[in-house]
């Protein structure tokens, strides 16, 4: 179970974070980040004459010639192959409508369920209010189509879900899932992190679940520090000594 979920994380990861602190600076929209013909405008920036100008509030990062913005705040912008955690809001003739906390609700077709389902029995597999982890497989204008075919995807039973700011998700996952694995090990909980900022936690006891939630919220609150892994280790030490 653990491994399956890890693979789902890696597939959905947009960029890895942590340890690569290099030269980041905080920028606001309209601020000139760098000047020079050599630079290329990446995500969250635009070119204005010789200058690369930010169009978002966040951390500017230069990787080689490309300058881009790492957002720190903001709503979830869906992308292809993102793994998200969502909640079934409706059952239609040919599939389920899923709330994934984006501008538009997503659709999960009956064909994208891992096994054949009779149309009359849809409710037995996924009922309104059920929580799933799914992957975005197409994105057309206002249609978001989900699939459950893939490792680590499917209905999430027991446990609970909570929300963090979606742009903090890469931090919580860490490099190749290192951060979320650390939290899983230390709390013994199963955790699924959706790119939309919804996080599902399920463990042996409520105490361990709450501990996992607090750890995740701790990580999500630290956006501008390096060596986060050590910090989380010491946070766990403190929490264990405290209780």
């Amino acid at each position, binding site marked *: 179970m653990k491994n399956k979920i890890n693979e789902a994380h890696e597939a959905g990861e947009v960029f890895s974070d942590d340890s690569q602190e290099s030269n980041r600076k*905080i920028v*606001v*929209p*309209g*601020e*000139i980040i760098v000047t020079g013909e050599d630079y290329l405008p990446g995500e*969250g920036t635009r070119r204005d004459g010789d200058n690369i*100008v930010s*169009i*978002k*509030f*966040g*951390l500017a990062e230069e990787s080689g010639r490309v300058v881009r913005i790492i*957002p*720190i*705040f*903001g*709503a979830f912008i869906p992308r292809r192959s993102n793994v998200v955690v969502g909640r079934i809001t409706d059952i239609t003739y040919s599939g389920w409508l899923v709330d994934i906390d984006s*501008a*538009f*609700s997503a659709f999960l077709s009956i064909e994208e369920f891992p096994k054949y389902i009779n149309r009359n029995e849809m409710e037995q597999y996924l009922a309104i209010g059920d929580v799933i982890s799914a992957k975005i497989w197409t994105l057309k*204008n*206002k249609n978001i189509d989900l699939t459950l075919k893939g490792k680590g995807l499917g209905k999430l039973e027991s446990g609970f879900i909570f929300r963090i700011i979606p*742009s903090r998700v890469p931090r919580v996952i860490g490099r190749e899932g290192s951060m979320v694995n650390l939290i899983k090990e230390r709390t013994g909980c199963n955790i699924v992190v959706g790119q939309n900022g919804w996080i599902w936690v399920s463990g042996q006891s409520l105490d361990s679940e709450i501990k996992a939630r607090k750890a995740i919220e701790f990580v999500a*609150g*630290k*956006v*501008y*520090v390096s060596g986060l892994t050590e910090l989380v280790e010491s946070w766990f030490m403190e929490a264990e000594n405290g209780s």
Partner: protein
Amino acid sequence: MAVKRSDGRKPNELRPIIAKIGVVPNADGSALFAFGDTIAIAAVYGPRQLHPQHMQNPSKGVLRCNYDLLSFSVYDRKKPGPSRRSQEISKVTEWALIPAVYLEQFPNSVIDVQIYILQADAGTRTAGINAASMALAHAGIPMRDLVCSLAVGKLDKEIVVDITKEEEDFEDGEGATDLAIAKLANSDEFSLLQMDGKIQPELFNNALKAGAEACSKIYEVQKKALKEAINTLGSDE
């Protein structure tokens, strides 16, 4: 003889400014902005799905602003609910902000901006625009620039910036003129120009220039507030 301002400010001096982001944790972005005794808070929700559906625009998103005074913000209780005045200000706020926002990235969606005035002492629409522009940035909305706004005034023959309610009611000589402006911080584009009162055409450019200078001061405050918010996120919480 130049007019003396009752609070002893110089003609180009602003009231003390307070700017802060993240004041409404439930919202995607929020900010507080205060010019002296005028306090505005703004909260941004979205981009999210727009209802009713017939208002959706498949080529670009919709920015929806709602400005209002809280009932205790003024001396005589303001009757709650939309009024002719608040509807007008909601609309001009929307127009002041739209040039700064990349709405074409959010087809069929809406960005909701709610602005409330906690305490009013003239210049409420401008404080609201400043707060809204910071809240939009905080919400991670792609923007061309931040929007800075303030009210320039003319007291008798003297051009002053950031007038208070007391100065707005000035009656000596030529009386008071209230010119509300909003400007994109890093360009010379103005997105709001409203005037109450009279001004000589040759003085108008001076007033705009004084306003633009004061806007750059406001921009520095907004920038600082946004940047400090990230620094505090890193160190402790």
